[in-house]
């Protein structure tokens, strides 16, 4: 048996060790809750039942019946379009405000998902959750493995974070460890509504899960330059 198979068997055995019956109390509570609850019916059923009930209102002649039905459906369609257009057009809401003054600190979580991995190339999708709408969205990272040893892997690449009002685009640097720990740093420039702003973030989260906390800041224009090495203490 190979090491891989051995590990998979170990994992399957570990997963098998656990409860295999549902708590009766939970099942009974769910049944009690659903007994007094109406099921959701599809739009088709919702429409068909009332039409069956009002069927006798339509003319007896087949052509006239079809014309009447078509007129009713056209009316429903027209009403739904008129009602929904304002919501559809403005579904993303107004663009978030961009503060022209001092930098704004932003925090949130990033869920990292590797969607493609080759020996030297990695593509990841990052789902970002934050209260700041400007950086809420999904990011794509195209990464190159710069260096790899038994303990660390260094990656560099490009990243694009897009949402309804614009994108943040720039370079990202990542260091990962076999335990799953990861340190990530990026400086991204804004486009569209974010034009002229810079978003900088870092992940210094020692946990090894795929959901990491990040901290960053959105700067008007460029972030301040690093001090000259000679000026550092």
């Amino acid at each position: 048996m190979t090491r891989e198979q051995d590990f998979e068997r170990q994992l399957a055995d570990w997963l098998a060790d656990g409860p295999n019956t549902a708590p009766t109390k939970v099942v009974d509570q769910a049944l009690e809750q659903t007994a007094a609850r109406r099921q959701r019916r599809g739009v088709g059923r919702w429409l068909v039942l009332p039409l069956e009930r009002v069927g006798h209102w339509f003319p007896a002649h087949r052509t006239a019946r079809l014309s009447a039905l078509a007129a009713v459906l056209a009316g429903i369609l027209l009403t739904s379009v008129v009602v929904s257009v304002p919501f559809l057009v403005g579904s993303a809401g107004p663009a978030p405000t961009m503060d022209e003054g001092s930098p704004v600190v932003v925090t949130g979580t990033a869920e990292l998902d590797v969607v493609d991995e080759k020996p030297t190339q990695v593509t990841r999708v990052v789902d970002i959750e934050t209260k700041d709408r400007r950086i809420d969205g999904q990011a794509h990272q195209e990464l190159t493995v710069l260096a790899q040893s038994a303990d660390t892997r260094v990656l560099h690449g490009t990243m694009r974070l897009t949402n309804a009002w614009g994108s943040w685009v720039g370079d990202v640097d990542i260091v990962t460890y076999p335990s799953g720990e990861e340190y990530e740093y990026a400086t991204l420039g804004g486009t569209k509504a974010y034009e002229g702003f810079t978003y900088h973030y870092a992940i210094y989260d020692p946990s090894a899960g795929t959901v990491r906390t990040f901290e960053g800041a959105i700067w008007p224009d460029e972030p301040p330059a690093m001090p000259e090495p000679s000026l550092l203490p």
Partner: protein
Amino acid sequence: MQLRELVEQAGRGDHEAFAAVVRASAARLYAIAYRILRDADLANDALQEALVKVWDDLPALRDPDRFDAWAARITCRCCYRLAKHERRFALPAPADPEPDTTTFVAQVADQDEMERGFRRLSPEHRAVLVLHYYLGLTLGEVADTLDIPPGTVGSRLHYAVRSLRAALESEARTTEAWERST
């Protein structure tokens, strides 16, 4: 009566048929929820929420033969939702004070390390592991159950297995170092 017929009747609003469907499926759904969440209270909440949602949405299930996969998907989504809102989910398992070297205790330490490694994974990665290694579904079946592309299943499985192995190997290195130092 076959499960298919019960599902059809439950979809038409027959609550007795639904009760029979629940009694036939609850154990499997609970087993999935418990293994993803690793917490009995959270798994109870996930199961109850999933069963109510199954009842609500059953009329929309077009193919009764796909009930098992559909209900498993709803259960997984309830687990994701609970995991995102529950602090208990994020708590790691307690660490061992120091590794032991006897075979039995080493096996227990391995189990603990597997638990800790597993708890570091996101619920989405855990779900893929549970469906593949616990329920024995193929990657295609996992993709079908979770309604995600097969490529995403492959990458999640690869990442999750690699993370778990890294956690176990890291523990093995610590044990070796500890043995050398004593």
